């Protein structure tokens, strides 16, 4: 279970997160909502270990750790989808299954782009490439920032199906969005504004 205890983060004099308490069991999907600049990405970056925080603690208490996919492109532009995955999997000290990788390309409907350098792919397809990384690596908690941005209606549907699939495999997802959550599936929803009120 992921446990966040008394997490605080501020930039100069501006407090972004104040004494945040947060828990999430395995097999759950949690959405973090909030306006632009409200601190959603900061919270996810603190959870991922990418950003230092002022005080508090974050404990994952799980076997396979976490994977963080930021709202940025997350690619080496000169590599293909598979080469990119190969490099990223090395950083995670993991190997991926070739058959499963081919299946994931089909599921995400990006099979036709597999030989192209990623810098030539559209934003929507790069978003799908990010989920391809998540599908082929082993993790317990997926932290993903704005997963539905740049996606068309079909893409959102595919993403929601994959999220449900992750959930059925007892994996948890925490994702942030500033859009409405009508089309998304989730177990709990948290407003980042709640993180600013001292408990």
């Amino acid at each position, binding site marked *: 279970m992921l446990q966040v205890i008394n997490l605080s983060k501020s930039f100069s004099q501006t407090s972004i997160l104040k004494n945040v308490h947060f828990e999430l069991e395995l097999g759950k999907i949690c959405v973090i909502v909030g306006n632009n600049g409200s601190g959603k990405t900061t919270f996810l970056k603190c959870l991922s270990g*990418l950003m230092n925080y002022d005080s508090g603690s974050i404990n994952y208490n799980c076997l396979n750790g976490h994977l963080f996919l930021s709202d940025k*492109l*997350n690619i080496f532009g*000169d*590599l293909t989808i598979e080469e990119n995955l190969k490099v*990223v999997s090395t*950083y995670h*000290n993991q190997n991926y299954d070739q058959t499963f990788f081919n299946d994931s390309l089909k599921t995400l409907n990006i099979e036709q782009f597999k030989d192209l350098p990623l810098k030539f792919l559209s934003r929507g397809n790069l978003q799908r490439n990010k989920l391809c990384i998540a599908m082929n690596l082993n993790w317990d908690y997926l932290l993903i920032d704005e997963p539905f941005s740049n996606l068309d209606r079909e893409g959102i549907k595919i993403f929601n199906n994959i999220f449900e699939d992750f959930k059925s495999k007892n994996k948890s997802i925490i994702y942030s969005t500033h859009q409405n959550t009508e089309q998304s599936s989730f177990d709990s929803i948290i407003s980042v504004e709640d993180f600013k009120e001292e408990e």
Partner: protein
Amino acid sequence: MIFKLIKNEFFLERKSSFNLLYITFFAIACFMFLLFSFPLSKIFDTTVFTGFFWIIISLSTIKLIENSFAREKDYNIYDLIYSTPIDLTGIYFAKLLSLNFILVGVQLIIFLSYMILSDLSFEILFNLLLLSIVTNFGLLSFGILIFLITNTNTSKSFLFPVIFFPLIIPVLINASNILFGIIIGEISSLYIESWMILLTFGLIGILLGINLFGKLIKQ
């Protein structure tokens, strides 16, 4: 694990658009600049060459470090790499070793051209290789740290060389001194001291890198 990371770095350098070609071309351009900026009689003057050689290498170091991190920043793979559970020291060493290897390649290209032009014996190549590796560790380790310190500043491309150059002057002077000794085939004055200074720089740079790389990446 470290071998996998080094392999990764080489793979990325190979795949990055024209990065290797760019650095080699940049170093050769600097070398050509040397050839055209001195009177003919001075070009093969060992004192001039040794000094200019290390200036070329320090300029190449700046471009090499900038390109290596730019590749990660341009398409924002940064977040994905540095949030992994892997020890950041491993990534630092992989970067240091792979960049060192590339820089040694550039040094060999320049030095071999100089050797052919000035009829030097190929036996001195081993000493040059040793000198290059030790000096590169000092240049690269300090270079990476200063790049990361200045990285968040808006005038980073100006600040990085401005801070980097004064700091590496002792490295350049002592590396030139040793290279001068290697070329003329005699032990130059303060030869041992120069080696000690290069080793100290390399060691301090690596130790600082081990301790600060993670913190600077996460700033």
